[in-house]
């Protein structure tokens, strides 16, 4: 049965990048919500929510950064194999 | 694509110019053929040679284009310049080691052989290969070209620069690559013009 490994490397790379990008978008949406919730609780006087919100936002940003590094690695791998023609 | 490759054998060219005529009929450049037609030592012989774009793996024309107008597709075909981007600077015309790109002054665009992409992308032969009576330009499967005495090669050396192409040149069997030293082909003052272009 044909598997995804039978596709040319360029198509596989594009699929991997599309997956990574959708994950980044989801994380971004969560971060937007977290920022607005943190601001709202700060303005209403609950100062204790600021620290956990900042910590989780930082964790999500680091995950986004890792996903970008993954995209970059896939990109240079596929470019390398394509240029060998 | 579709298992076919393009083979050029200048020794078979009989100078009938059918390829020029056929290429001219394409609507995008009607009246102007994209074939490079040469006479070789015209003073001494009637030899002629017809060339198409060699569709290099690392196209020099694309690399020197300042407007990023020349693109190579996934099937290896190097296309004519993109009309919105081409600034008619002639960089590609000067850079191509084979001398293929043509600058169309009225259209202000570089055009060249694109292997009749509207035909080859659906499995048909390019016009020139279809009409060539001696099959100096042929678009066949590698098994059919194996019957010939000459062997195809797609490696060229221009001085120390190595160029690999998609289009094959038929060469003597023992030759693995075609090396050209430009200095060999420069003529001194007492020579007449030895090669002309149509």
């Amino acid at each position, binding site marked *: 049965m044909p598997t995804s490994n039978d596709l040319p490397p*360029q198509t596989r*790379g*594009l699929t991997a*990048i*599309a997956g*990574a*990008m959708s994950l*980044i*978008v989801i*994380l*971004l949406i969560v*971060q*937007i919500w*977290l*920022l607005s919730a*943190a*601001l709202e609780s*700060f303005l*209403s006087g609950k*100062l204790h929510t*600021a*620290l956990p*919100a*900042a910590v989780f*936002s*930082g964790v*999500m*940003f680091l995950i*986004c*950064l890792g*996903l*970008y*590094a993954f*995209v*970059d*690695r896939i*990109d*240079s791998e*596929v*470019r390398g194999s*394509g240029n060998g023609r | 694509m579709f298992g076919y490759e393009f083979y050029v054998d200048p020794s078979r060219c009989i100078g009938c110019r059918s390829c020029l005529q056929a290429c001219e009929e394409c609507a995008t450049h009607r009246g102007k053929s994209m074939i490079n037609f040469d006479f070789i030592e015209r003073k001494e012989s009637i030899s002629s040679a017809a060339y198409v774009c060699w569709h290099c793996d*690392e*196209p020099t024309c*694309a*690399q020197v284009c300042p407007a*990023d107008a*020349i*693109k*190579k*597709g*996934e099937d290896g075909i190097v296309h004519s310049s993109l009309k919105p981007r081409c600034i008619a600077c002639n960089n590609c015309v000067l850079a191509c080691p084979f001398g293929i790109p043509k600058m169309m002054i009225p259209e202000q665009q570089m055009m060249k052989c694109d292997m009749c992409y509207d035909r080859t992308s659906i499995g048909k032969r390019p016009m020139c290969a279809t009409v060539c009576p001696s099959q100096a330009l042929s678009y066949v499967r590698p098994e059919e070209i194996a019957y010939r005495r000459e062997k195809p090669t797609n490696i060229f050396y221009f001085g120390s620069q190595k160029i690999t192409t998609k289009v094959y040149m038929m060469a003597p069997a023992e030759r693995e690559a075609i090396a050209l030293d430009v200095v060999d082909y420069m003529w001194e003052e007492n020579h007449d013009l030895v090669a002309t272009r149509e």
Partner: protein
Amino acid sequence: MTWLRRGSSEPLWKEEFPVRTADERYVTRRQLTKFLVLTSLGMFVGNIWILIRSIFYKAPIYGHQPVAQLGEIPVGGVKLFSYPSKDDHCILIRTAEDEYVGYSQKCTHLSCAVYYSQAENRLECPCHKGFFSIKDGAVLQGPPSWPLPRIVLEARGEQLVAIEVKG
């Protein structure tokens, strides 16, 4: 972001303007991914800003302002006043002979002016039927999510003085 690029033999301009059409799609996707990660960084910086502001937050200092004379209003009566500024409208209610309570008049739902209902002994908002307890301003019913801010009152001689806002 050069430190993020894998060791590449190609110069940057060659990577950003590829000759192959297939590679061009990669450039666009990579640039979009970069931009999204930058947006994520922006969100994180926003959260850090909130954190810094919460660390340096100073509770506001309220002035003392006389709002009424003792005995000025009858039991079950109300008086409107402004505290701490003239734009902060408040309501004073005498709930018993010696008991006075003060609240901000701004309903915590959408800022309509609340009024005192003697029959039900509670503060009511006419806009969306939000009801607040007279004892501590807690929400009894309706759309408001937070209790009414309470004005802390102090009796000084014959005067009722507002000294701070709680909540």
